[in-house]
């Protein structure tokens, strides 16, 4: 289990090495706040795997979204993706582990009150900043939420718009930035290959294996002068969140929300913004297919997703 406070993350600090952070599955997270009519950026708890017990010290309303960890309030099962009134003294349990997915989100009316660090309440574990004292939540921690006068929640929710997860994971990508460094066959077949998530998977990045990529013979000697002499080495450049790095022929690394802001390995592609949240739900041993699409489809998917959330 790993529980951290997250919101939508921090923007604009790449040049001093501060990554986005924020909820890994931002779609599930956004639904939680939308269900409670919170502000979109109000902080909640990201729960990895499950095994969490929370005792309520006040009356409140919460929503649980993301992976299904069989939530219970006292001894009664409670629904996901719905507002749940909680009375003082009641105990919320997220047992887990989920069948599909790995992260659940608990949103609270008003949002969790923790100090702001560089414009966000998200926990950034590598630096030990943000969220609750810059660390994961531990037994005995006491959290408070901001006072809210707004106790109206969504009562009649459109069930049709609730996200569902389907396995194996199918994730759409845009090929680039260094797709020209790979051989034509690798690029052509990339969408047919089933990659498997290794046990090195966390908020910094996910390492994937089980397949191979092949590089072209290098002809740009100047680049290798600055970047390094292995075929995967490039002069260090910006790491977009969701970039798929290929440090060697047998391993991919997907840059996660806490990932380094730059890197010196070739990137075969980037996960589209609309699908990046799915990576927050994959676990070691899971299979992923990456489907290359074009830019117009990527933007359409993003706008459709935004519209769907507005119909909630």
């Amino acid at each position, binding site marked *: 289990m790993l529980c951290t406070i997250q919101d939508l993350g921090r923007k604009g600090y*790449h040049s001093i090495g501060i990554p986005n952070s924020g909820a890994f599955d931002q779609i599930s997270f956004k639904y939680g706040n939308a269900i409670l009519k919170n502000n979109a950026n109000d902080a909640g708890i990201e729960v990895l795997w499950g095994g969490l017990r929370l005792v309520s010290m006040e009356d409140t309303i919460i929503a649980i979204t993301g992976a299904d960890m069989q939530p219970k309030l006292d001894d009664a099962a409670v629904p996901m993706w719905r507002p749940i009134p909680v009375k003082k003294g009641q105990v919320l349990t997220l047992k887990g582990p989920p069948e599909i997915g790995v992260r659940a989100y608990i949103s609270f009316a008003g949002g969790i009150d923790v100090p702001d660090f560089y414009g966000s309440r998200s926990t950034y574990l*590598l630096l030990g900043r943000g969220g609750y004292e810059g660390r994961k939540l531990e037994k005995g921690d006491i959290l408070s939420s901001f006072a809210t006068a707004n106790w109206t929640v969504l009562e009649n929710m459109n069930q049709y718009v609730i996200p569902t997860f389907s396995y194996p994971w199918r994730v759409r990508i845009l090929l680039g930035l260094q797709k020209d460094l790979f051989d034509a066959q690798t690029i052509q077949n990339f969408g047919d290959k089933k990659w498997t998530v290794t046990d090195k998977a966390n908020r910094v990045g996910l390492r994937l294996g089980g397949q191979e990529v092949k590089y072209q013979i290098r002809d740009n000697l100047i680049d290798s002068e*600055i970047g390094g*002499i292995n075929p995967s080495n490039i002069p260090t*450049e910006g790491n*977009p969140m969701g970039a798929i790095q290929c*440090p060697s022929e047998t391993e991919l690394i997907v840059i996660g929300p806490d990932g380094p802001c730059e890197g010196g*390995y070739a990137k075969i592609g980037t996960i589209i913004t609309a699908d990046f949240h799915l990576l927050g739900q994959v676990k070691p041993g899971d299979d992923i297919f990456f489907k290359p699409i074009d830019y117009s489809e990527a933007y359409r998917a993003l706008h459709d997703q935004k519209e769907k959330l507005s119909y909630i």
Partner: protein
Amino acid sequence: MVFKEPIILKGGDSNITIKFGDDGSLHLNLYILTFEKITKSRKPEWLVDTTALRTTIMLTFDPLRIQIDGVIAAVEEIIADGISVPDEYPSRIVHLPVFYNDPLTRECAKCFDMPPNLEVMAKENCTSVDEIIRRHEAPEYFVSYTSFMFGSVGAFPIGKYKNIKNSKYKTPRTWTPPGTVGIGGSTTAIYSMKSPGGVMMLGNIPVKTYDIDAKNKHFEDDNLLVHPGDRIKFHSIDGNQYERLKSQRDSYSYKIENSHIEWQAYASM
């Protein structure tokens, strides 16, 4: 050398990477930093972030406000208006102690089934470990970027120097000791915190490159030691000095010279 036409790489639906050149020169780096400054000063509503490196800059944008072709058009406009690198650029010189060939990084290499990285570097450069250290300590380094992690540094040698270049790890480390100094390609990196990493490690610095709580008074006005545009001069220390400085890192007094750099003076080297 700056390309006549920059290469614009599409990096997904929310960012582009602009490659302005490939020689890794001081002038190219200052050109990129100047482009960054101009772009930010125009405050485009779609701009989320900039990540300037040695040969490239990545612009991150809000994909719900603008699509990639719109950003490319805006960038072409900025470039067409002209990017002129100032003759003199403010550039402090920050002196840093390094314990080369230290046990921490040797131990770390072992954990990832690698030989001592200095031996790999010596082999790839057809020379000895001692010569790699001598070559590394000699020149001044220009701080190109600080974007890997908070307090990290990416820098390259300037002036007259004997080059070192080497490969990176094929399977990047999942952790690197804080303070590690390494080289990937011809770029020197300083790791500020325990973090993943792929460059070959050659030493460790005992003092802080960031201090958010300003336990060391030096960091009261600025939590970061260096910024792009600064220069670093490394000074070799031994194990005893390393331990002493490490135990006094909260009271360590940094040696920093205020100065400026003229890129033309380095253009012919």
